């Protein structure tokens, strides 16, 4: 394996054959999610008892919504070539706690403003460190995760906050149209809006362009720092809304609410075919990735498989999905 990339390696049989393989692999890593999701849902409907029940579908939506909202937002950071934003863990918890705690004392509107301020602060710190200081996004957001969680614990005392039983937050959290809860509708709206921003606006174009080639984007006269701060801001606002949705669903909030969100959101993004190498990806496919990951988790839960195995499955899923993408690139470069 040491000579894996040595130039002396035998040339691939024919150029066309290798490029066809590259084409298939690339297509799979980008669009495979359509097929995989369809197969998974079909499988679940046939083999898993209780999957198709109305109650279970509502439950899947309820659980998918906050993760999905984080995921569609975080897609921006991933496409910009900055791997991921680990601090969504702290952001989701912060906005949930602020929503419940502040609205209990001062009303809903100040609570939303306070949460927005917190989200912007997260985005500013992450974006400045990554965009201007060119620091590694994984390490920066690892640091801000612990700073954020520590501050949240300091101010909240680690206690659980309960909302009033009949407040507007509660009403929103329980509301649904047919089997679809309001939270899932928020996810769908977020997907469409962020999808339009990514595909149709100048900012979205710059995010993608930065992911493909950072220097070229800068030389083209773009203030790349603002693009990065913008990408982190999109993620932060999405994480804030996810925190609202999560807090509204249970009508409670506590400082470890967001644990595992960075990981599930990343799984959804990667399975959805967004490349961790940056530049390529789509918010809509992330939405499908969310469906895939949520249905998979639901199947595992319904089959009585323990939390540990679920975590192993998702970890393996991430590595496999990225491997597919990496192999496609490798074959294409040959």
């Amino acid at each position: 394996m040491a000579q894996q990339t040595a130039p002396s390696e035998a040339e691939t049989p024919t150029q066309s054959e290798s490029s066809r393989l590259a084409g298939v692999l690339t297509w799979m890593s980008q669009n495979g999610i359509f097929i995989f999701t369809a197969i998974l849902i079909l499988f679940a409907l046939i083999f898993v008892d209780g999957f198709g029940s109305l109650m279970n579908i509502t439950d899947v939506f309820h659980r998918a919504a906050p993760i999905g909202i984080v995921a569609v937002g975080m897609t921006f950071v991933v496409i910009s070539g900055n791997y991921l934003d680990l601090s969504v863990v702290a952001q989701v918890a912060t906005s949930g706690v602020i929503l419940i705690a502040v609205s209990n004392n001062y009303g809903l509107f100040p609570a939303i403003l306070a949460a927005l301020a917190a989200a912007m602060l997260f985005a500013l710190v992450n974006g400045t460190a990554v965009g201007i200081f060119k620091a590694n996004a994984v390490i920066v957001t690892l640091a801000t995760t612990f700073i954020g969680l520590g501050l949240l614990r300091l101010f909240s005392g680690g206690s659980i906050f309960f909302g009033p039983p009949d407040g507007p937050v509660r009403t929103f959290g329980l509301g649904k149209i047919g089997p679809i809860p309001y939270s899932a509708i928020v996810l769908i709206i977020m997907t469409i809006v962020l999808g339009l921003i990514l595909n149709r606006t100048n900012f979205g174009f710059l995010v993608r362009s930065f992911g493909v080639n950072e220097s070229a984007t800068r030389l083209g006269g773009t203030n790349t720092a603002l693009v990065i701060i913008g990408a982190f801001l999109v993620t932060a606002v999405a994480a804030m809304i996810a925190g609202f949705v999560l807090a509204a669903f249970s009508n409670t909030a506590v400082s470890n609410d967001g644990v595992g969100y960075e990981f599930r959101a990343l799984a959804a993004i990667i399975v959805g075919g967004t490349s961790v190498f940056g530049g390529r990806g789509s918010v809509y496919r992330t939405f499908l990735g969310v469906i895939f990951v949520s249905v998979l988790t639901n199947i595992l839960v319904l089959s009585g498989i323990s939390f540990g195995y679920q975590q192993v499955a998702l970890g393996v899923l991430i590595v496999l999905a990225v491997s597919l993408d990496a192999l496609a690139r490798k074959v294409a470069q040959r």
Partner: protein
Amino acid sequence: MSSTISLGTDEPTGTWGRVRRTASRRTEGRGIVLLTFIIIMVALLEPLALTAYEVTLGRIALIGIVALGLTAVILMGELDLSVASTLAVAGVIMASIPDLALGIVAALVAGLVVGVINAFFVAVIGINSFIATLGTLFALRGLAFVLSNEAPVSLANKDAGIAFGQPLVGPLTPRILIFILVFIAIQLFVSRVKTGREFFAVGGNRQAARDAGIPVNKRIFTGFMISGFVAALAGVINTLERTTADPTAGSTVLLASFAAAIIGGNYLKGGRGSIVGTLIGAASLGILQVALTISGVQVPIQQIYIGLILLLAVTTDPTSLRAVRGSLRTFRQSRMKTPDS
């Protein structure tokens, strides 16, 4: 480490020039500043953390040992996020095997296997190490839960664990001694052994290293195996000291060990750094943590300080500062041009 690269004709001369030349080659500057600052602050505010040095040394060893293994990977410009879970899995494996010696061997082998898996995805498949090891971080955390049935596993041989916590040589517990041994071993490896010295070449310029005939992929395997092995060793030590293996162990170690390696001046892009720097970083954080604990600061609040130090460390390395200077210059130039046009 002490490489003798000629700096060309405009090499500074004289004693001051020599000092400056050495200083420009070393990477531990920020670590030394932080360590000095923390020692002064702690000596003034909470001197107990320095006088009770057995406790502080134990804490430094806890943070430092994982950071030492991590440094081997960082030198090559890669990252191993999975160390936190490797530590937990190794502990659980060790505690689930009744025979102590066999358990320790199995745990250490597990660490090596994790290293091989990580290296496989990084070197052979070509995934970015941040993402690959993030995947294994979560997969292994899950594995630790599965193997332990989601509950702490107690060690069968509790006496060995209790004996392990006692001072062995003077005030030094086996944990501290093992830490010192690991430090010496890795320090010698990357500064005196050819394979280890090649880590710097792989991190500095991978293509150049490949062209120079260094088996880059093999070195990546070696590096990840070192970090996996050392993380497993840390898991074994933790389990022995606490006589139980906690599947959630290691999540606080992740932040501290990264902070230690990075504040010690190890460049995340690879090629520059030193094991001594990591030791300095670990010492700073260990003293800080003990001082904070003595003053009654809770662990989540301590993480704020460590997080801030980590953030400061990644944003103040020379490449970052250069990037900031660059963007400031562009900004100023664009401001100056605007009135003309």
